[in-house]
């Protein structure tokens, strides 16, 4: 590292100078560029403002208006003529009851004639614009600084990589692995090498998660966030409690820097692609010890049809995130059970893989966690003789305990909340999933189209293992059986592991089909819960993908051993040609799918997050019972007081509210606040007394939070989502566990002079 600094002094100085200049610019004050008052708009329901010029940069439009309950107002910033996509903004709608809105306007080239344009719907006099302003913020400078940082990191990385090559420290095989994986990532990310995105089935939901997390963090009051305040027009949605937000922090941070929602999402998808390639390569390298085998396995995983389908067709980001970590879990388990060359550093590395793997899956997608945990339990049971050996049980035990403690901050509050209340998902009784499984014909798809349907073969989506994986399995089975029937058959050291991986691939593939008796299992008690929660059996293509990729990696080693015993003079050529054909099928199939997806999918340009609205809760699984799952029923509204109760000075900032109440009556009165009544809200008084208001057990209309004000009470109340004491305990436990693990690893490195295998501290 120091040598790199010495060799590139001038370049680094230039980079530091540019970054310093950029960072200084990030603290510029915002500047008002344009303002138009209500009088100037003549309170017209539709119209355009005066023209104004905008230099390149990022601006924030701020609108103050009074919108009646049965009206809405669409506002946008547009420009006349000018250069190609110089101004990028979708505009947004202000709904009834909303008094303020802001959104970003991205200007890439100077525009000479930009303007506000608005149009409202509603009865006469229902809309009154107080004023609209346009501020130039330092968002553009922040984005520029971040882009410079990323560019310089990439350039320095490539220079260091090249130096390593020229000095002979990086072998040709490693170089080939890097470039092949880069090409694989390029192919898998291909449909997004544009200036737009596509709306997969769940895209709307995940975009709202990102925006919701960003808004909640900006409003303060919760960290980690449990209930996001942005959803359902400020009523909040407990998505963070039930769906891990740890990795959603990446696009959220990009949003906080100032990138548009679409750019943040696409950059996040690219991060997922790169992480999948890197993590799977690392995992398979640890298992096989061979660069070539790891590269092949990693390519199989990166280009797996189901994974790409998950990202683009379904936009199932949680599942795609979880798939990053599945190879780590497999690698950890394999190394714990495979005791060759086992020592303390090997054990720590294997435990770390397992812990990080399970943590990653748990923080990404609960259903995949369910499958992974059940799968691991099955492995432990099948290999029960090995499981109860001292070393292995110790490794598994330590991994399980650390995993549980490290993730305590997530799973404990989630289970606690599940016990506190009933939610929409509790009402899912009968969920026949067998018909959602894949057909046998789909297993042999060579050219997977983008498709449009999950069920049956008509216009089907590419929900499969992939032709390359199938060819590997068939080749293995045929060659293995052929050898077994020969006289003096010898033993290939990779026979056993490859048999297991092939078997697991085929079994998990079978689980994903309509031929597995899921409907029968859905009738059995206890098992029914797990089956129902799966939603569709095609989720088993996640483990199929990782087993198939691992099988492909070990196949490379297996076939090399086989080749040594082949009498043919061109054995090496046949194997190379065969592997090339398999890789050709893999790439060809992935390229076909990526191309078809790019040519057949409608584009969406989403620059303005506010344009999406906030009611996209999909099925509303995390809505408490009693609250409506119809997003349109939620409006911006003031608190609703029971007759006789007075309130004033109501202010709301996300889920943090303050209100002055006065109950002159002789009995308790309730006040309904415009947030969903999740358990965990708390009230803080300005001056505490003996008789304090409290949160009611029942909920208000459409599930709103209800607080009870005692008779004769008056005072300022501060209501916010506080969670429960168990939340704080779980967070402390996780923090302490993380610190202790970190200190242990540091101690290991410092005092024993050994770099822990695979973990650089």
């Amino acid at each position, binding site marked *: 590292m120091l040598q790199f600094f010495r060799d590139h002094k001038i370049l680094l100085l230039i980079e530091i100078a540019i970054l310093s200049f950029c960072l200084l610019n990030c603290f510029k004050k915002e500047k008002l560029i344009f303002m138009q008052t209500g009088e100037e708009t003549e309170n017209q329901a539709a119209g355009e403002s005066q023209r104004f010029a905008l230099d390149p940069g990022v601006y924030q439009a701020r609108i103050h208006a009074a919108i009646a309950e049965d009206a809405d107002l669409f506002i946008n910033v547009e420009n006349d003529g000018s250069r190609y996509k110089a101004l990028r903004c979708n505009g947004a709608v202000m709904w009834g009851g909303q008094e303020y809105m802001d959104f970003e306007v991205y200007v890439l080239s100077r525009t000479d004639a930009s303007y506000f344009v608005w149009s409202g719907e509603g009865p006469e006099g229902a809309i009154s614009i107080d004023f609209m302003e346009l501020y130039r913020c330092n968002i553009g400078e922040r984005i520029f600084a971040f882009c410079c940082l990323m560019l310089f990191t990439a350039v320095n990385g490539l220079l260091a990589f090249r130096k390593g090559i020229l000095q002979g420290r990086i072998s040709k095989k490693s170089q080939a692995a890097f470039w092949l994986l880069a090409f694989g990532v390029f192919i898998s990310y291909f449909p*997004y090498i544009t200036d737009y995105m596509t709306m997969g089935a769940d895209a709307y939901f995940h975009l709202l998660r990102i925006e919701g997390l960003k808004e909640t963090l900006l409003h303060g009051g919760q960290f980690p966030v449990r209930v996001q305040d942005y959803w359902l027009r400020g009523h909040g949605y407990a998505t963070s409690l039930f769906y891990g937000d740890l990795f959603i922090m990446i696009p959220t941070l990009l949003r906080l820097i100032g990138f548009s929602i679409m750019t943040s999402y696409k950059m996040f998808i690219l991060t997922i692609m790169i992480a999948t390639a890197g993590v799977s390569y690392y995992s398979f390298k640890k298992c096989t010890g061979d660069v070539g085998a790891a590269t092949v396995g990693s390519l199989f995983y990166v280009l797996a049809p189901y994974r790409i389908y998950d990202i683009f067709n379904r936009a199932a980001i949680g599942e795609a995130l979880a798939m990053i970590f599945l190879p780590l879990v497999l690698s950890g388990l394999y190394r714990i059970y495979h005791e060759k060359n086992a020592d303390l550093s090997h054990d720590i590395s294997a435990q770390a893989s397992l812990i990080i793997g399970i943590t990653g899956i748990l923080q990404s997608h609960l259903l995949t966690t369910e499958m992974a945990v059940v799968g691991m339990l099955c492995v432990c049971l099948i290999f029960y003789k090995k499981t109860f050996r001292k070393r292995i049980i110790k490794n598994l035990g330590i991994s399980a305990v650390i995993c549980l403690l490290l993730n305590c901050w997530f799973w404990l509050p989630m289970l606690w909340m599940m016990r506190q209340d009933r939610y929409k998902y509790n009402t899912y009784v009968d969920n026949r999933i067998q018909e959602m499984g894949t057909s046998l014909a789909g297993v042999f798809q060579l050219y997977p189209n983008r498709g449009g349907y999950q069920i049956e073969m008509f216009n089907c989506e590419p929900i499969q293992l992939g032709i390359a994986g199938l060819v590997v399995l068939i080749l293995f089975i045929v060659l293995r059986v052929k050898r077994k029937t020969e006289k003096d058959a010898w033993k290939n050291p990779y026979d056993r592991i490859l048999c297991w991986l092939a078997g697991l691939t085929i079994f998990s593939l079978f689980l994903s089909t309509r031929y597995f008796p899921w409907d029968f299992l859905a009738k059995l008690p206890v098992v029914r819960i797990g089956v129902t929660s799966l939603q569709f059996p095609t989720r088993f293509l996640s483990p199929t993908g990782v087993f198939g990729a691992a099988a492909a990696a070990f196949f490379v080693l297996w076939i090399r051993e086989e080749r040594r015993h082949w009498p043919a003079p061109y054995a090496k050529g046949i194997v190379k040609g065969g592997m090339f054909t398999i890789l050709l099928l893999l790439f060809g199939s992935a390229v*076909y799918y990526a191309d078809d997806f790019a040519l057949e999918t*409608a584009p969406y340009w989403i620059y303005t997050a506010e344009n999406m609205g906030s009611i996209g809760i999909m099925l509303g699984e995390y809505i408490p019972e009693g609250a409506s799952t119809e997003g349109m029923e939620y409006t911006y509204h003031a608190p609703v007081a029971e007759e006789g109760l007075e309130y004033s000075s109501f202010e709301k900032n996300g889920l943090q509210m303050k209100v002055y109440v006065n109950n002159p009556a002789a009995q308790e009165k309730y006040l309904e606040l415009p947030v969903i009544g999740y358990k965990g809200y708390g009230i803080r008084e300005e001056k505490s007394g003996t008789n304090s208001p409290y949160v009611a057990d029942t909920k208000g209309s459409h599930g709103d939070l209800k607080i009870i004000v005692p008779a004769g009470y008056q005072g300022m109340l501060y209501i916010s989502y506080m969670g429960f004491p168990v939340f704080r305990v779980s967070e402390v436990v996780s923090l302490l566990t993380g610190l202790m693990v970190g200190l242990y690893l540091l101690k290991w490195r410092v005092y024993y002079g050994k770099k822990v295998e695979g973990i650089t501290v």
Partner: protein
Amino acid sequence: MKKCFKFAHTFEIHLEKEQKNVIFGLGLIVLIASVPFLCNANLDSVSLHYYMQRIEELKIGLLNFRFFAILNPEWLTPADSSESLAYGNIFLLFPAILRLLGLPSIPSYHLFGIVWNMITAFIAYYCFRSIFKNKYIGLICSGFYTLSIFRIHRFVVLSAVGESCAYTFFPLILYGFFRAFTEDSGQKQYKTVWISIAIGIGGVMQTHFPSFEVTCFLIAAICLLNLRKVTDLPVFWELLKGFCGAVLAGAWSLFPVMRNYLAFSNGRIQSFGLYFAQLALHFWKFGENTAFSGQGMSHSTPCGVGLILVLGVFVFCFLWFGGALKGKGDRLFFWGKLSAVLGIAFMWMSLSAFPWDWIQDRKMISDRLISSLQSPTVFLGWGTFFLIMTFGFCLWYCAQNERKWEYYLLCVCFFIEITTSSMYLTDSIVQNMHQTEDYVQENCSFEMVKMDGTTALEEINASIFSRS
């Protein structure tokens, strides 16, 4: 009988095995490229109607002994009137003569297409073979060139005959410059360098003026990068002879076109640029969407360079990055690097991400020069050429360094490109062709209209009937 065989033997052409393979290969390339012309149907593109009527105009001109007929500037196209003045007609004489001989319009056009494919394949083979001094590399590059996605798009999908014809001459220009800068100027054959430059530049000038504009800038850039060589008198003389020869030979069409070419602005072009994903698409299908800024890539028209050529750049970067090309003195290494850089540059210039609007706003002359290009995709012609040069260089490098497996791998990539990309596209195109009646019949779906209101169809019919 023996005398007959002896007679036949005197006309036998003795070819080596390599030569036979090359001829067979070129024949196959031409056959595949000509598949869309082997039927009595065509894509119903605007440019097709335009060129068909130009052919008719030429035919009428020949009947009236007007050999150098330029399209009457009073004819208007739906786009703008400058387009009708931007091309010479010399290469359309062949289909016009076929029309004179009595062949119907579409078969004349198709026969012209097949012959032009042959010319393109041969010129490309000749130039690439001479640059890389390897017949098979020449054949592969010729295959890439003749069956490139860009060429199929221009020639078959858009029927942009002028641009496709100009594309044919690009290899000659680069070959001439390659010879000028790499050969020994003291040798006798050096005095023939100017010929390929003159034919190349002349061909481009006579067929598609926007391509000529791009070519001029490219020549300026190449000369700047080889300034030391250019200032060498023999080199400069050959280049000057070539350029002047082209200009003088084409003066009859050049000056009338130049008069109107930069007369006014055609508007902004950046919105017609591509996405990078379109450059690297492999399984292209026929599509009609050109409004990428509104419809994205959905059902996009097949305009790109193809994944395999982009992969070629990847391979080149792998070699360059890994130090394999470091410190090598062979001039071909310089041209390999130059081709990669220019290929990437031209690809970038064809994208909507390139700031064309900003450049147009700088000065009036840049506005005129850029707007006359009509679309940034015009850069893909040269871009495709340089990417093929890069791929050819990678092949040459592997052959020279006995990297057998890598060489065969690249050959397989070529095979994949032809069978799964070019042929996939031509199949898709053929399946979208409509039966098109002869253009002198009444069901012509588009008519060019003269300023006084008479249609081209009426005028052509009138001239035909007056001769009968």
